[in-house]
């Protein structure tokens, strides 16, 4: 079977109703995929203020107009819904193999609504769809679930997108995972799936996704495999993944340490790339059709721990959130904690940051040892991580409170105004310090789905005339270096352009590490891939417009949920100076300048500078008149 169809599959789990719709090709081209396909449907069909964990919430599992073709760095499945963690629009991307599987089976996206009376999974094979009973899988961790599903379907190559016990139990930062090691993390979309009694969505597509210009796709693949991976950004990712950032940030003085009170971790060497390669990492693995292969895998077999490499290995974000944030440096404990989180499908950033908040609350005397169920939840005590993860997943004792995230825990104790709570819109901040990259700060504040590091500009790649963003990214329209610490109009403009660019990358299911300025593949090749696969004569301008539509639609989604400009903010700690290391006494972001930058961004977007509401004329310009009238 040859296909490049973008059929939308609808599954109402409440009444087992299944239907298929063929979206208008103009809609597919105008919105491309991912959140572009999800947001119009959610805005039309999801009532404002819907409880994210109720049957009324809708889970959109999507690919894009190019998914499934054999291009480089384009494996991602994009899941969208209303987030139970933030109450805002929720979105998350994962690599792996599932998205190509869905496309090869003949579908572009699945919209899942309702709630099954008991546990089920959805089985999709080459255009046929079935809802299957999953009572025997409920409660199992992800590895067992995948093994059983493949065995009972007699399909060793079935791709299993699933939740673990964290999602079943409604942990508000539960993940969705495919191939046991590729996570739709952040935003708690695994809990949405769990609330629908949906254990997994399993696909097997034996078709071939057709492309309009296979020679061009082949040419870009060959370039990536031969030249791209030899370029410095490609080579670092291939050899070391994201983990070298530990040393970079440690030496700069901005490694998130001890719940962000320090920028240097005294035992940082133990969690460096060099030591993790010596102790826990084995050969890496990659995603569908990607030669970069940046994913780490960990294997441990010692007297204390056994860590199975099927569940991947800790990347930079996990080593930061469970390591330096908590002052835990034992690689074996970190590998085991990561494996447990992955077996249970739990977001390591929110988990680590919430535990970090608890550790500081204990240190300040707000939480007693008795309230910690007798556990010694203090900085530096890595031993506590393993029993604590079990408690969080089972929602037992203090684990129940940690399972709801740091903001809710702080609110319960009347501590939400304190400087040691580091979240935005209810989502805990990732491991990049905005005091050395102010564009990341703008992203944390402005992101539709709470503090996020993926769509951020990462200012360092635009810092000098020979930085990759300036040297190779001229197609993005940034020709002059921008100071990583500035908050002037040039930074807001950079943020605006990169918000479009990385949103586009996400919508199309591309990997952010594939393309300039974060990865080796030139921007023009990205455009060429879209042209060669779809046959549409698209330009970067047209693609940017598609991204811009979704940024406006996500904004509308959040405004109708009650979010206001007060939610576009940065945690207090980032307005304070660093307390140790090379940046001691420096770094605190100027709060007034930050607010001015936020307001300037509203204006650049064509949003009301006071209310942050998209103005009707902008929505009309973007072809979103329907939403201008409802907004």
């Amino acid at each position: 079977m040859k296909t490049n169809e973008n059929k939308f599959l609808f599954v109402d789990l409440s009444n087992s109703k299944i239907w298929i719709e063929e979206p208008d090709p103009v809609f597919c081209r105008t919105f491309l995929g991912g959140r572009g396909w999800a947001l119009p449907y959610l805005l039309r069909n999801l009532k404002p203020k819907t409880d994210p964990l109720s049957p009324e919430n809708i889970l959109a599992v999507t690919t894009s107009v190019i998914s499934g073709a054999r291009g480089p760095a384009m494996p991602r499945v994009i899941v969208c819904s209303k987030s139970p963690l933030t109450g805002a629009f929720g979105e998350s991307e994962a690599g792996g193999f599932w998205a190509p599987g869905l496309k090869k089976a003949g579908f572009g996206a699945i919209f899942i609504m309702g709630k099954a009376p008991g546990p089920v999974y959805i089985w999709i094979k080459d255009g046929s769809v079935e809802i299957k009973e999953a009572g025997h899988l409920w409660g199992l961790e992800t590895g067992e679930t995948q093994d059983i599903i493949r065995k009972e379907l007699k399909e060793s190559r079935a791709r299993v997108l699933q939740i673990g016990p964290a999602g079943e139990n409604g942990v508000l930062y539960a993940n969705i995972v495919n191939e046991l090691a590729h996570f739709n993390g952040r935003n708690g979309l695994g809990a949405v799936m769990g609330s629908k009694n949906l254990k997994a969505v399993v696909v097997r597509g034996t078709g071939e996704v057709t492309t309009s210009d296979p020679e061009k796709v082949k040419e870009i693949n060959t370039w990536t495999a031969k030249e791209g991976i030899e370029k410095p950004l490609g080579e670092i990712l291939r050899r070391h993944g994201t983990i070298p950032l530990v040393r970079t940030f440690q030496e700069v003085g901005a490694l998130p340490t001890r719940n962000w009170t320090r920028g240097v971790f005294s035992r940082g060497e133990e969690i460096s790339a060099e030591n993790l390669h010596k102790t826990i990492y084995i050969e890496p693995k990659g995603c569908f059709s990607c030669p970069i292969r940046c994913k780490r895998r960990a294997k441990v077999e010692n007297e204390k721990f056994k860590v199975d490499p099927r569940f991947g290995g800790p990347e930079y974000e996990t080593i930061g959130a469970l390591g330096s944030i908590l002052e835990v440096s034992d690689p074996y404990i970190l590998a085991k904690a990561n494996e447990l989180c992955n077996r249970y499908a739990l977001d390591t950033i929110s988990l680590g940051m919430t535990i970090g908040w608890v550790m500081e609350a204990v240190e300040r005397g707000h939480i007693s040892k008795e309230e910690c169920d007798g556990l010694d939840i203090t900085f530096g005590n890595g031993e506590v991580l393993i029993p604590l993860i079990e408690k969080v997943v089972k929602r037992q004792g203090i684990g129940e409170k940690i399972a709801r995230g740091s903001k809710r825990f702080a609110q319960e104790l009347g501590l939400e105004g304190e400087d040691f709570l580091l979240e935005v819109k209810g989502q805990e901040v990732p491991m990049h310090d905005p005091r050395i990259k102010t564009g990341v700060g703008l992203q944390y504040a402005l992101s539709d789905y709470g503090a996020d590091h993926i769509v951020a500009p990462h200012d360092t790649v635009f810092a000098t005339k020979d930085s990759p963003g300036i040297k190779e990214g001229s197609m993005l329209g940034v020709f002059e270096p921008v100071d990583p610490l500035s908050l002037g109009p040039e930074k807001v403009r950079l943020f605006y352009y990169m918000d479009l660019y990385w949103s586009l990358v996400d919508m199309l299911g591309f990997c952010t590490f594939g393309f300039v300025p974060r990865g080796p593949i030139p921007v023009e090749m990205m455009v060429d891939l879209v042209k060669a696969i779809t046959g549409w004569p698209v330009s970067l301008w047209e693609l940017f417009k598609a991204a811009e539509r979704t940024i406006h639609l996500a904004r509308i989604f959040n405004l109708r949920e009650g979010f206001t400009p007060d939610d576009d903010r940065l945690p207090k700690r980032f307005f304070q100076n660093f307390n140790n290391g090379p940046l001691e006494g420096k770094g605190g972001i100027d709060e007034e300048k930050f607010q001015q930058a936020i307001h300037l961004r509203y204006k650049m977007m064509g949003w009301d500078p006071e209310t942050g509401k998209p103005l009707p004329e902008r929505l009309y310009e973007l072809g979103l008149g329907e939403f201008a009238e409802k907004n």
Partner: protein
Amino acid sequence: MEEKQILVKIRDQRGIGEKLPEEVKAREGIELGEFMENLPLPGGPGYYTILHNGKIAERGKKLETGDEIGILPLSVGG
């Protein structure tokens, strides 16, 4: 007139490519930006995080004998 030279220490922490020498000679008065451009760094210095005596480097700063340049991977996110 003979040009005076300085000796700059290099700490290559890139983790890729051929390791740079631990010490490099340069002309006295050279600015860090020019010094970096002369190093055989794939892509050029902008593809790395550069530290000068343990702090984020400033391109216009003049180098002196015994100064240490640290070269680390760039923070691209992730």
